[in-house]
């Protein structure tokens, strides 16, 4: 092995892949039944970069040569950067050797488009196939479905990969047209739709025949870049909601745009990454998927933007004061989940614990409820509760005044620049 050359390739092709934020390694149920190498079940983050993101998979491009010229992408054709390409064997060796040392949960393989879609997809599939069939590798594999690749290749990919994804890139079709004129949104939706049908069909088969092979057991995901174009949070979340509902996506990732190019269509190179907004979008996404919220409750025509100062659940609560206070000892789980400061775990514990005895403030605090936020919205076994007739705005001010936002430091440094 030529260590120097491999190092150079790895640096280039990992650097180019890092803007793809998906790093999930959970949701599969691949077992190590053949006394081979690895398994994939509940995700593990093996390390964290200095920007605090999880490193779970070996995330690389097969190559950063690309025939497209998308403005938001570092690998675009017109960008003057070093180009490289791995061989199939190199990717296999890296994956196996990293995995054996417990560095990673598996492989995330994407690629620039070289020659055409099928040619690229065929190589991605070949790597996954080799790992599974020649190396008995049962670790996690996430492959990109290349828009425009044939159904046959997609089907084969699903047999070897745990998860497949195709990135929508821009939240709306207009955004995509503006920044990636060569790309067509329908080309991205087609493979998603095809794979969704396959997954549903294969799951049915698996119910009937236990021996039927797994097909993309960790489902599909996608990614949208935010802050590169002018879509508001309502448009972004509506899009996400539509894709969750229509294509059974497991995840939609929101990637705050990192300026990589001076282009009048894009934010300036010195623009800061919209990290707070990204965080609020993820919080809203969780409310959709786990907390029983409808997208219109979080963003709507009156409220098209998420409040950056407070989390979206608190935002919903102060707009809907008529729903409170909630009696912790009586309300059903769905309503308790809607209280700001109460998460899934605390809500579950409350509902279990109150069957034994009514709960008071002290117990709620110990269970894990963030009392500083929840106290305005709940009553419990205590004579103390919020008696003032506070408006939503009052509550927001009180909460902001006594909490130390994790973003406070960031916004101060930003302000001092001007």
């Amino acid at each position, binding site marked *: 092995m030529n260590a120097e050359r491999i190092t150079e390739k790895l640096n280039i092709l990992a650097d180019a892949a890092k803007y793809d934020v998906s790093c999930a390694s959970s949701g599969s149920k691949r077992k190590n039944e053949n006394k*081979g190498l690895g398994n994939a079940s509940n995700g593990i983050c093996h390390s964290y*970069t200095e920007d605090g993101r999880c490193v779970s998979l070996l995330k690389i491009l097969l190559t950063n040569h690309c025939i497209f010229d998308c403005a938001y992408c570092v690998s675009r054709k017109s960008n003057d950067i070093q180009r490289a390409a791995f061989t199939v064997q190199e990717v296999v060796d890296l994956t196996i050797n990293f995995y054996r040392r417990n560095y990673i949960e598996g492989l995330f393989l994407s690629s620039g488009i070289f020659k055409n879609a099928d040619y690229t997809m065929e190589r991605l599939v070949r790597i996954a196939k080799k790992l599974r069939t020649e190396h008995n590798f049962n670790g996690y594999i996430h492959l990109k479905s290349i828009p425009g690749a044939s159904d046959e290749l997609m089907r084969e990919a699903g047999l070897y990969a745990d998860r497949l994804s195709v990135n929508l890139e821009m939240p709306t079709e207009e955004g995509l047209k503006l920044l990636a004129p060569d790309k067509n949104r329908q080309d991205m939706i087609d493979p998603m739709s095809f794979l969704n049908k396959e997954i549903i069909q294969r799951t049915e088969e698996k119910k009937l025949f236990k021996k039927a092979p797994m097909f993309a057991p960790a489902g599909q995901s996608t990614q949208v870049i935010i802050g590169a174009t002018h879509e508001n949070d309502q448009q972004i979340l509506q899009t996400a909601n539509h894709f969750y509902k229509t294509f059974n996506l497991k995840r939609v990732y929101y990637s705050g745009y990192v300026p990589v190019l001076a282009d009048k269509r894009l934010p300036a190179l010195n623009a800061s990454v919209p990290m707070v907004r990204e965080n609020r979008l993820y919080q809203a996404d969780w409310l959709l998927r786990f907390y029983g919220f409808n997208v219109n409750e979080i963003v709507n025509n009156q409220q098209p933007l998420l409040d950056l100062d407070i989390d979206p659940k608190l935002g919903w609560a102060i707009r809907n004061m008529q729903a409170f206070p909630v009696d912790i000892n009586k309300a059903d789980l769905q309503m308790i989940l809607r209280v700001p400061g109460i998460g899934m775990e605390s809500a579950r514990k409350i509902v279990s614990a109150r069957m034994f005895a009514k709960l008071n403030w002290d117990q709620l605090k110990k269970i894990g409820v963030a009392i500083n936020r929840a106290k305005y919205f709940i009553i419990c076994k205590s004579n103390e509760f919020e008696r003032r007739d506070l408006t939503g705005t009052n509550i927001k001010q009180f909460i902001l005044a006594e909490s130390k936002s994790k973003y406070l430091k960031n916004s101060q440094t930003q302000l001092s620049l001007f």
Partner: protein
Amino acid sequence: MTTLLHDGTFEGLLTAIFEVYDRRLTHVKMQKGEWYASAMFEDMIKVTTDEARAVRVLKGLRAKLSSAGVQRLYIAHMAALEGEDDIIAGYIRYVFDAGQNIEEDYGNKYVLRVSEIVGMMRREKHRMEAFVRFQKLKDETFYATITPDFNVLPLLIKHFKSRYADQKWIIYDIKRNYGLYYDLHDTQFISLEFSAVNHPGKVIAAYNEEEEIYQHLWKNYFTSVNIPARKNTKLHLRHIPKRYWKHLTEKI
């Protein structure tokens, strides 16, 4: 207040609980350690670990708790936190005194505390599953050292055995001086000579020829995936506290 002195094992603690019911004690305190002479002037009972008695208590627990509930108690005991035996004893007495399964009664201080301790243990176990870094040695064994906050090595067997079924490996807890060895068939606990495990030079001398290349590649990869424009040190440190760095190839 009666103090029950036991040997610190789970069986010892369960035997002590047996004594509580056998002697109809009400106010008790659990203490682990050696019997000392002045103790005879205090209200103290020396508990001799008795397997039959421990098993009877365990049977009682199994009848009133789910199997996961019983396991949680054992895990909480493994955490070996100072003074927490009183919590476990309190929990067990609450189990026997209540008419129903109380393992979800999070309003109760014992149940809540046990759930916290188990949470701490699970977190540490999960961290070890993530932060173990194997180094491939000349004899094809993959070797890793750890210094976990709690004694979680026994909890790691299942995960590593099913994952790395086709390679020999050792995970060694330097703090507690014992390790886990998998020989392609089964795992066993081992203890190595102190000078060997505490001498990084000796380990490096035993490296397989490919080892340094892959460590180098991994470090490079780790640097390449970082996005400097998003630097967030606070978050980084929350995810990997500094005390774990000494075993992480990418952070050395």
